[in-house]
């Protein structure tokens, strides 16, 4: 795959187009069931986030939210390929990665609403989704930190001989912060079972990655600095992501050390609620919408002979699940005031003096 991603002049960047090879992975050896599961996941992530967006607009979601509309294939592909006890480390843009591990929508949505039935009881919010029982070891909102923490989980797995792998998602902009560098070198030196997945969506917040990065591919062009192979995948193609996940998880699990993947993708919306996305050059969004992960995956499944009705039914089922989660979230109680004072410490409380 080649994308016209080039280094541009500081302060100005050209339109970056997606590939147009929608049929590339049609022949990939992936079971029909797996594919249908991924199709469902793609729709779960999409429809969930559209609902979250609507509820934002109704002022039900407070604070900020970072959607990954358009980027669902990465989370769906990895979530599907991961072993049940593998670890996910996500960012503030972590709805998709959390749901893709099987976490129920209700808890995630309720968390966005600051309700007691939220995944974190309303104490963490949209940027810190965590579900330890699903291996979702947290969503982290300070750029870079969680790459180092993912190493720790991988180290623990290695030490315990559990065969678990830590998968750590982050953005293109994150490759320029110090913690990225420390984490990658550290993982390589100790051959930790960790897969680093850079979701290159072309922008940090409002600034094009090409304007503030010394190399065209922010992750892949740095792999060599850690003795790793550069790996680039089409982040809009769920099959490409699934295959990459399968291979790299296997690599890490078998003791061959970390992997750094760069998945090229695009966020359809702004960086966060506050962002109208004006910095996107004309035509760019349209081109990527045409290469939408859900659209191209549906096309593939249809080419492979899955009846439209079956796909429609999946979409409807997901829609009903989102509706049910919405109701449950909205009907959730407010957190009890006392909960503000719990769980600073492992004894359950917040007392710091006698």
């Amino acid at each position, binding site marked *: 795959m080649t994308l016209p991603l080039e280094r541009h002049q500081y302060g100005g960047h050209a339109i970056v187009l997606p590939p147009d090879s929608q049929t590339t992975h049609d022949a990939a050896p992936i079971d029909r069931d797996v594919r249908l599961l991924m199709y469902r996941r793609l729709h779960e992530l999409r429809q969930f986030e559209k609902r979250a967006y609507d509820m934002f607009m109704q002022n039900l979601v407070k*604070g*900020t939210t970072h959607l990954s509309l358009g980027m669902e294939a990465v989370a769906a592909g990895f979530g599907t390929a991961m072993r049940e006890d593998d670890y996910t480390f996500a960012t503030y843009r972590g709805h998709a990665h959390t749901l893709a591990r099987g976490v129920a929508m209700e808890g995630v949505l309720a968390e966005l609403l600051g309700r007691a039935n939220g995944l974190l009881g*309303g104490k963490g919010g949209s940027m*810190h989704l965590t579900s330890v029982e699903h291996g979702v070891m947290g969503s982290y909102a300070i750029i870079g930190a969680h790459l180092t923490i993912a190493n720790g989980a991988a180290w623990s797995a290695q030490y315990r001989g559990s065969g678990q792998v830590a998968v750590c998602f982050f953005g293109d902009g994150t490759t320029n912060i110090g913690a990225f560098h420390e984490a990658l070198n550290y993982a390589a030196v100790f051959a930790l079972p960790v897969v680093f997945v850079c979701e290159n969506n072309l922008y940090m917040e409002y600034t094009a990655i090409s304007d*503030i990065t010394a190399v065209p591919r922010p992750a892949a062009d740095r792999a060599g600095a850690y003795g790793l192979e550069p790996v680039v995948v089409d982040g809009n193609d769920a099959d490409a992501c699934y295959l990459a996940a399968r291979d790299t998880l296997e690599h890490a699990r078998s003791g061959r050390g970390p992997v750094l993947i760069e998945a090229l993708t695009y966020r359809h919306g702004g960086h966060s609620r506050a962002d109208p996305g004006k910095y996107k050059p004309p035509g760019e969004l349209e081109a990527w919408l045409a290469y939408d992960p859900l659209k191209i995956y549906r096309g593939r499944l249809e080419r492979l002979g899955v009846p439209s009705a079956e796909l429609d039914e999946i979409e409807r089922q997901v829609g009903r699940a989102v509706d049910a989660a919405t109701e449950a979230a909205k009907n959730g109680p407010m957190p009890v005031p006392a909960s503000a004072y719990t769980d600073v410490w492992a004894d359950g409380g917040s007392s710091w003096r006698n």
Partner: protein
Amino acid sequence: MAQLTYREAVARGIAQEMRRDERVVLIGEDIAGAGGVFKTTVGLLEQFGPRRVIDTPISEQAILGAAMGAAMTGLRPIAEIMFSDFFAVCWDIVVNQMAKTRYMTNGQVTIPLVVKSGNGGGLRFGAQHSQSIENWAMAVPGLKVVTPSCPEDVVGLMAAAVRSDDPVLFFEHKGLYASKGDVPDGTVEDVLGTAKIRRRGDHATIAALGLMVPRAMEAAERLAGRGISCEVIDVRSLIPLDARTILESVARTGRLFTVEENPRALGWGAEVASIVGDEAFWDLDGPIVRITTPHVPLPSADSLEDLVIPSVDRIVAEIEKAMQA
């Protein structure tokens, strides 16, 4: 006289100084093309061009290091750290480098720079994007620490910060960005290290900072209705600290309350309390009471966040209780 929002005042203050002095330059993430994620730098790229207003990578250490090195060699940079919580990723440059280099070099190096940052809670951003960290900076010799509470002070203190030959951390309160106030026309100047008495009173002194200033004012208003007359001091600058204004006020009122957004342990009010408790001990008619966020990380749910950050109700209640005891 113009009515400006606090966020507009930030851009106005920076523009005033950039116009005055070619050596003033501005760097940070998304501050140029996008005008800042809090829209505090809108229009500056257009006015001053990409040589002076520069979007950077997500590299806070590199940003502050660049600001420091440039300040050492003839420029007067303003750098933005988007949320003050992110100071934690570049704290070394702040506390070990900027703060200490003049002293360590016996005065050979001068570091005239400003680091501006969105600080404080109330926006439901959760524990990693809502902290009030003025106290982190106050504990480190070599840093000046400023927190304006209204648009006029934003412009004037920004001017003072840019003109200071020392590193200044300029904490903008995120919860105040949308608030409005009058700002005089023309050049606005102010003085670092000066507190302001916002309201006169006889029975108790309230020292407050940032977002807590309007809350303390409203509390004082309500307490006045209950027969308790409070003097409200806007501390404005933690280092240098205008201890005298507070000490003089306490000498008159006999009581001191601090209203702090930071978590309790070692909030700035602890230092103020220890100064007043030592130097004005014989003036005090009762204990100094600190009204703070409890010593917990900030929860994100609106109902919980509102519960922990000092509210007008809580300020009123705690002062009333203490004054009646």
